[in-house]
């Protein structure tokens, strides 16, 4: 980790503007570290030529004082975002050679604002996973290790490459997507900040679809301020996505340092789940004390349908996935495996192209949508979703401004340790994050402490619809109280 790659995004931005550093130096420093960090497998495609060209353009603009809000800032892009002329695979074999002819709205806004693309980041195949182990391009290693143990750990998922790269200082920030916790859980596992904005805050256009009523893009960065800076560029109206909100995007960075005095923070009793590790509840307790010390009022609340969020999610998300992934049929793009007729071609293509987790979810989704089962499963799950959302609405009506919960039920686990026998074991990772997607709310994960192995633990703050500014203000309080940033020891470039 060089001095340049250890800067925060805000520091780098300020030094670029002051002409203390150049975009070229900053990009080169990152490209050099990326090369050394290849054992992490965080990048599935490095784009050094792109990065150099974009950095040179940024330097020209900066010299004239015309730089955008992210001018010269090197970022990594989750491989779920379509990037024009740059291979985009969703880390699936079925898209292994796909080169989009268009740019996703979110990434086009980052480039509009001056950001520099370093490459494409690994993720669980089609974002289906909580450990990045389902990627067809291989698992990602976390830069973190347990104290006195060299066993490789997962960075979380599905945005595992994004989290690992930001934590290992091989980009200043990264994009992610979050359908059930895919930004917040990996952020918590790797000691960085990640926010899933309100559904509709960022355009989904050009992002490989998983579950369209739950999917939302958001940033990863090493500080709350850096996430606020990135979200401002990523968010905003888009005529190409009819679910994208027309609400103007505030300058989120202004929320950093804002007083949280008098804000009402809900503590939902249902998140105190059976068998919760003592270190998780202690961390939660500490977070509560930090916010209280900053002047917030702590209120016990109830979200009675919390325990049903995960089972309802595992009906709704696979149902939407089975429909979205019907497009991969070997006809218009992606892999084609010949068959004896066209149906056989579809079936052989999809059998060869999808990994086990994706196949399982498509099949479950197909079943719960099939004639005779639709009402019992899909419709019931959507009704339960209404009740989950209503729980949150009731909390806001009580005057609650935000809700504090743990981000994950544990610290990071080892590669191969979970879910091999029963997939439900892996799904339980998202128990604290999935409710937020079901209700379409914003949620931020902020590093708060460490577990007994010395691994990072995060706290989650859940906000009202379009309450991102509150989350940045509160997240900053947690970040300040938690002390110096957690930085993993560099073992990978030795």
């Amino acid at each position: 980790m060089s001095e340049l790659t250890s800067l925060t995004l805000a520091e780098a931005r300020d030094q670029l503007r002051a002409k203390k550093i150049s975009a070229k130096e900053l990009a080169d420093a990152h490209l050099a570290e990326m090369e050394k960090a290849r054992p992490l497998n965080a990048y599935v495609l490095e784009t050094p030529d792109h990065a150099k060209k974009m950095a040179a353009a940024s330097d020209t603009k900066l010299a004239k004082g015309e730089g955008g809000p992210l001018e010269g800032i090197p970022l990594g892009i989750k491989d779920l975002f379509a990037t024009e002329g740059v291979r985009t695979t969703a880390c699936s074999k079925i898209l292994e050679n796909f080169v989009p002819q268009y740019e996703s709205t979110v990434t086009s806004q980052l480039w509009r604002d001056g950001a520099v693309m370093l490459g494409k980041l690994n993720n669980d195949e089609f974002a289906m996973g909580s450990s990045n182990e389902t990627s067809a391009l291989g698992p990602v290693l976390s830069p973190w290790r347990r104290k006195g143990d060299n066993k490789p750990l997962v960075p979380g998922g599905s945005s595992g490459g994004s989290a690992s790269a930001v934590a290992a200082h091989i980009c200043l920030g990264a994009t992610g997507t979050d359908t059930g916790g895919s930004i917040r859980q990996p952020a918590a596992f790797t000691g960085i900040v990640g926010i899933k904005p309100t559904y509709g805050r960022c355009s989904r256009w050009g992002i490989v679809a998983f579950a369209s009523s739950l999917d939302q893009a958001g940033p990863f960065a090493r500080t709350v301020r850096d996430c606020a800076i990135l979200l401002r560029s990523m968010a905003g109206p888009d005529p190409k996505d009819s679910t994208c909100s027309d609400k103007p995007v505030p300058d989120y960075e202004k929320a950093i340092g804002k007083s949280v005095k008098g804000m009402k923070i809900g503590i939902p009793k249902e998140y105190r789940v059976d068998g919760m590790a003592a270190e998780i509840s202690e961390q939660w307790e500490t977070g509560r004390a930090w916010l209280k010390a900053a002047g917030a009022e702590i209120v016990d609340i109830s979200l009675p349908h919390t325990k049903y969020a995960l089972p309802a999610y595992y009906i709704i998300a696979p149902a939407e996935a089975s429909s979205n992934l019907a497009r991969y049929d070997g006809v218009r793009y992606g892999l084609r495996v010949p068959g004896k007729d066209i149906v056989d071609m579809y079936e052989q293509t999809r059998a060869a192209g999808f990994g086990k987790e994706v196949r399982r979810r498509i099949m479950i989704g197909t079943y719960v949508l099939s004639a005779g089962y639709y009402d019992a499963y899909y419709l019931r799950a959507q009704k339960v979703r209404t009740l989950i959302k209503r729980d949150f609405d009731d909390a806001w009506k009580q005057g609650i401004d935000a809700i504090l919960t743990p981000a994950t039920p544990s610290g990071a686990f080892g590669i191969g340790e979970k879910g091999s026998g029963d997939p439900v074991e892996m799904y339980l990772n998202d128990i604290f994050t999935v409710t937020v997607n079901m209700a379409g709310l914003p949620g931020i994960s902020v590093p708060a402490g460490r577990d007994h192995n010395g691994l990072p633990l995060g706290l989650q703050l859940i906000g009202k619809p379009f309450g991102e500014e509150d989350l940045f203000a509160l997240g900053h309080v947690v970040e300040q109280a938690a002390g110096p940033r957690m930085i993993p020891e560099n073992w990978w470039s030795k």
Partner: protein
Amino acid sequence: MSVDAATVRRIAHLARIAVADNEIEHLRGEINNMLAFVEQLNEVNVDGVEPTASVEDMKLKMREDVVNDGDYAKRVLANAPASDDGFFQVPKVVE
């Protein structure tokens, strides 16, 4: 509810995914695990509850019904596994 081997085959065909015979039993186990997990939703009283398809408190946007995109067949076909003369090519579907 749980599924049998014939149902697994039927789902696989509906999903257009070829599944080998020796995978059926394993898949059946996985699907039944999931169905057992989601069984708890039956405890919830959903009488009179409207289903939620969208969490957004907004009206679907409308626009003028005009052609505002297109005319780039080459780009549309750029990733096609097989194409000819501006068309996607597939195995013969009509005898």
